[in-house]
């Protein structure tokens, strides 16, 4: 039907319409260009220069890809990348699993779902810096609540923030505690969209609860799961505040993520060129992740018939 109309309307008015469309979109597009594209391009440009605020006598020299070469040959950079990937993998997996369990529990509630849903969001509403501080106090040595409890039960807890592996425990816990509700809420919306009659039919066919979960819930929840996965992965890749507050990247650089390292190069050491190169690398990785995810979701939306 649409096809017939376009043919009937002819090419000229259509082009006119398209131009009008662009014009209407222009203000929004220029705002996006100004506040999103502009700074990104500027950072790319800056990353090709030697620009160190502490050393004005060096001038602002064009050095091509030298900053990138430095980053890629720096063990601290690769350490930070490794920490970031590991953090993202562990925290996002935990958040998805716990979030799904939480969503399923709330979904099966008969009464009080609204109240629980609101209460569930509380951790998400607390500013990350506050969450980080609270969890740091819990794990502080001595005197932290967690430590005191462990010691009373006969365990010998490590000095959490002085141990390269143990330091991750409070960090990941804080992140999972804060973001699981967000994931759960996304998944809950997905769950509530699933047609209940499918479960009824499955029950009549004698399908077990597990079979219902794998054959109905998971496939139909996939779009929501993907959205949660993408949001959380991109967020986790840029993680900064919770780590800044809890460990500042220590002990040594054992919990330093790529965003922490960039902060240190850019704002502590005032190396604008090198720091910009690091920012561009973070941007590229998250952008590719997002593109990949959008394609994945887009195809799914096309392939899947409206249920």
């Amino acid at each position, binding site marked *: 039907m649409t096809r017939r109309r376009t043919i009937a309307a002819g090419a000229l008015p259509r082009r006119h319409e398209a131009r009008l469309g662009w014009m209407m979109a222009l203000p929004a597009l220029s705002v996006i260009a100004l506040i999103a594209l502009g700074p990104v391009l500027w950072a790319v440009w800056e990353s090709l220069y030697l620009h160190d605020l502490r050393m004005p006598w060096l001038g602002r020299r064009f050095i091509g890809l030298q900053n990138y070469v430095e980053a890629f040959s720096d063990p601290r950079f690769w350490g930070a990348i490794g920490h970031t990937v590991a953090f993202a993998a562990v925290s996002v997996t935990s958040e998805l699993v716990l979030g799904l369990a939480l969503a399923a529990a709330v979904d099966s509630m008969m009464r009080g779902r609204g109240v629980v849903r609101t209460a569930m969001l509380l951790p998400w509403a607390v500013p990350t810096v506050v969450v980080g501080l609270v969890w740091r106090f819990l794990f502080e*040595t001595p005197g932290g609540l967690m430590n005191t409890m462990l010691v009373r039960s006969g365990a010998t807890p490590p000095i959490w923030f002085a141990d390269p592996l143990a330091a991750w425990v409070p960090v990941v816990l804080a992140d999972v505690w804060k973001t699981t509700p967000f994931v759960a809420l996304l998944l809950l919306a997905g769950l509530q969209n699933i047609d209940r009659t499918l479960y009824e039919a499955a029950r009549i066919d004698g399908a077990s609860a597990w079979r219902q979960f794998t054959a109905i819930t998971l496939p139909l929840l996939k779009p929501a799961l993907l959205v949660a996965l993408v949001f959380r992965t991109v967020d986790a890749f840029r993680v900064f505040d919770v780590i800044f507050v809890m460990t500042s990247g220590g002990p040594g650089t054992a919990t330093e993520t790529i965003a922490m390292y960039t902060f240190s190069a850019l704002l*502590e050491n005032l190396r604008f060129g090198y720091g910009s190169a690091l920012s561009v690398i973070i941007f590229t990785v998250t952008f590719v992740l997002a593109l990949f995810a959008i394609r994945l979701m887009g195809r799914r939306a096309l392939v899947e018939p409206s249920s």
Partner: protein
Amino acid sequence: MLTFAGSALGKEGESIRRQLEHFQAMHPGIRVDVQSTPDAADHRHQLYVQWLNARAADPDVLQLDVIWAPEFAAAGWILDLDRFRPPVDDFFPAALTANRWNGALYALPWFVDVGMLYWRSDLMSHPPMDLDELRQLAARGMREHAIPFGFVWQGARYEGLVTVFLEQLGAFGGVILDDHGRVAVDSDRAVAALTYMRDSIHVDAVVPAAVLTWQEEQVRLAFQNGQAVFMRNWPYAHALLQDPEQSRVAGRFGIAPMPAASGGAPTAALGGSVLAINANSGDSEAAYQLIEYLLEPAQLLERARIVGQYPPRPSMYDSHELEDALRVVPSEARAIIEHAVPRPATPVYTELSQILQIALHRGLTRQLEPRAALQQAAKDMRALLARTELGATQP
């Protein structure tokens, strides 16, 4: 019209505002505004760099952390003060060294901070003569008096750790940069110093491993609650520890220079604030007048009384007034300041320190052996200094 930028909170703010009012009354032609800046050193540094890099004419007079002076001087952001012929002989020499860059003086010390050993006078008759004795006394105090910690210091990964290390390094006769500005932090003496620090935690167990997450305040609280035999801290802790309302060790502790090992000398890390003039200041003459006024003995004494900071003029340590103001024996304080050693004077100090902090913390948390950690640090420091293209930096 002048602007002064620095700490303007709490007692420091109270003191500086009173002094500035008095100064304006004495100089009717000059008006001075206070520009309050963040108390966290990193944030203040970042703010100053933004202003000065933009060639702003305000603020005229800047309170700098002593480690920033070479950075700001090399960048051309602060004025060479030699033109005003400052009375350089009236200050502690170490406090001036830290403010020189390429032979010229760029700032004058306002107050000096020194790392010192706090010891429990109820547990021993005299402070330890050397690091071995310190370890023995610490262990004995823990054993015989059931005190949980022998020795506590700032071991978190931050600037404080570098100052603690600087003192242990001096105790073993090592340095971070040698007289020619070359990196010497991977020397055998430096390795011995870091090994001593690590072993006092993990082998001798006189230092609790928790110090690896502690800064000044956690350390002070441990000592103040009677949980430690020795403490390394700055002068600010003194008045708080003497307050019987909150302290369990009031009247039962003394201060002393950090002792040495064989082959080294007692060393105190030098900290504190200095005053400098913005190179783009519209009225540098008036700015210097203000600095001169703030550094008058009477003003320094008032600051010592209100804020508890140590004046940079040795001559003041002969007076009873200072004893009343600081409530320490001035000769004891002076003995410690005379052992003070500044941190390396280089425009890239903050990054140099960051490299060292990471290496020290890796060594102390046993992620790396002390020698490997310091070799890594030395390599990174050499690369950093090469990047400045200044050749060897000035001592």
